[in-house]
């Protein structure tokens, strides 16, 4: 079984770990995630690819307590396991929305340190394990 990224234009599985791909405006310095060819801040069109930081702090979060509709959801619904979702602030870069590996509200606190991980979502027709990205409490992995 091979691990593959859910979309390698957004998220890559490097030898040294998972990484999110973004873009940076060479005019005003604003970052985007995922990458795009125009700047949402200054409307410029001179964007360059960047790799985003893997560490950050939890900015806000919620619980996905009910099964999402499928499609579009491709994760397990039998059984559905509630998961958390949050925005993680990558210092000096951007806040990224992602699944969180910790689903217990009692163990999630705004401001806690988080790190990027690859999170198995489903298996494709060729038997590959499709990995999406998530953030885990720092030091847990």
């Amino acid at each position, binding site marked *: 079984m091979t691990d593959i990224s859910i979309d390698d234009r957004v998220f890559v599985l490097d030898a040294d770990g998972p990484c999110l791909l973004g873009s940076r405006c060479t005019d005003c310095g604003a970052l985007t995630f995922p990458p795009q060819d125009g700047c949402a801040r200054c409307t410029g069109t001179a964007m360059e690819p960047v790799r985003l930081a893997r560490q950050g702090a939890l900015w806000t*979060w*919620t619980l996905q307590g009910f099964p999402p*509709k499928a499609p579009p959801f*491709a994760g397990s619904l039998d059984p559905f396991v509630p998961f*958390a*979702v949050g925005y993680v602030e990558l210092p000096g870069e951007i*806040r990224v929305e992602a*699944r969180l590996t910790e689903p217990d*509200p009692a163990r999630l606190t705004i401001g806690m340190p988080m790190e990027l991980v690859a999170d198995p979502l489903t298996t494709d027709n060729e038997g590959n394990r499709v990995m999406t990205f998530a953030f885990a409490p720092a030091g847990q992995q």
Partner: protein
Amino acid sequence: MTGVAIVGVGMHAFGRTEGVSGMEQGVVATRRALADAGATWSDMQFAVGGSMEAGNADSIVSKLGLTGLQFTNVVNGCATGGTALATAANAILAGAYDVGLALGFDKHEPGAFRVDTKSAGLGEWYGTSGLALTTQFFGMKVNRYLHDHDMDQRILATIAAKAFRNGAQNPMAWRRKPLSEDEILASAMLSYPLTQYMFCSPGEGAAALVLCRAELAHRFTDRPVFLRSAVVRSRRYGSFEVLAPSLAIESAPGPTVETSRLAFEQAGIGPEDIDVAQVQDTEAGAELMHLAETGLCAHGEQERLIAEGATEIGGSLPVNTDGGCLANGEPIGASGLRQVYENVLQLRGDAGIRQVPGSPRAAFTHVYGAPGISGVTILTT
């Protein structure tokens, strides 16, 4: 804006109506609005209508009569109704027409909205990963807001309980059973800190308004209500919006703030002049946050206002007097016009047992929707 009057309003009850299509509900609302104005479909020189999932609004002409009028379809997420009204009002202000109709209807499948990531300009990965749920945004926004303003989750239950109490007094509402704060807090945790009964549900319904040039209002009614402003705006860089894979660290106010400010400027009145307000309450936290974003109060002031009963029908700033989205559900195309319908009833003194006392003279509506748009109207007697 002083030149547009609302001279007729009509609704089809919100909720679930088995066997009646969204468009057929639109026909009912239109005929009720025409009857209220003492007008006929043939009198309508133009119409602007919107529906997200119940068909192209202009197809309704085959049911109402093929009179040759100009019919413009609008779709703008939860601001569809507000956009229909703003577009219709602008047509009259531009001098293109004297009399026309703004219409919204919808009929959604049960459960949280199924987001089409491609239509929303998002990658497929966003939906497959389980991030394409508008409910998550509402949970995350209010979780951060409660944290920043040191408020307790219980205030969300207080807001929801008011909505169901008001809905119980509204024959057009879907949820007409009052619920206690404890029942609301004990319901299923859907999107922390929001429980099931703190959320509205996608539903069905229709609302329609007959509009005309203000100086013609007396032809239709002796109690016209005047549209002082109708503004729709999209988000700016740095605001925190629904269906956003990322947010800038540099933060900016959401579109509600700018839309409200412009609407007050155009109307020439301020938040302190508003006697009754309908604000987007997709969930209880939305009412909490929008109260401040609209300028109706300051951030952090809500706890005191709500504790004092200010937002109740008999309070100093009655909010969501018809039960809001929480008690009415959300048929996207119709929701914004449902708010205007309620305000017209309140300004005319026709709201029955939920009438705001003291002859309200100025009323405010606000919608917010994906992917970060807001629509505001201000009405006066």
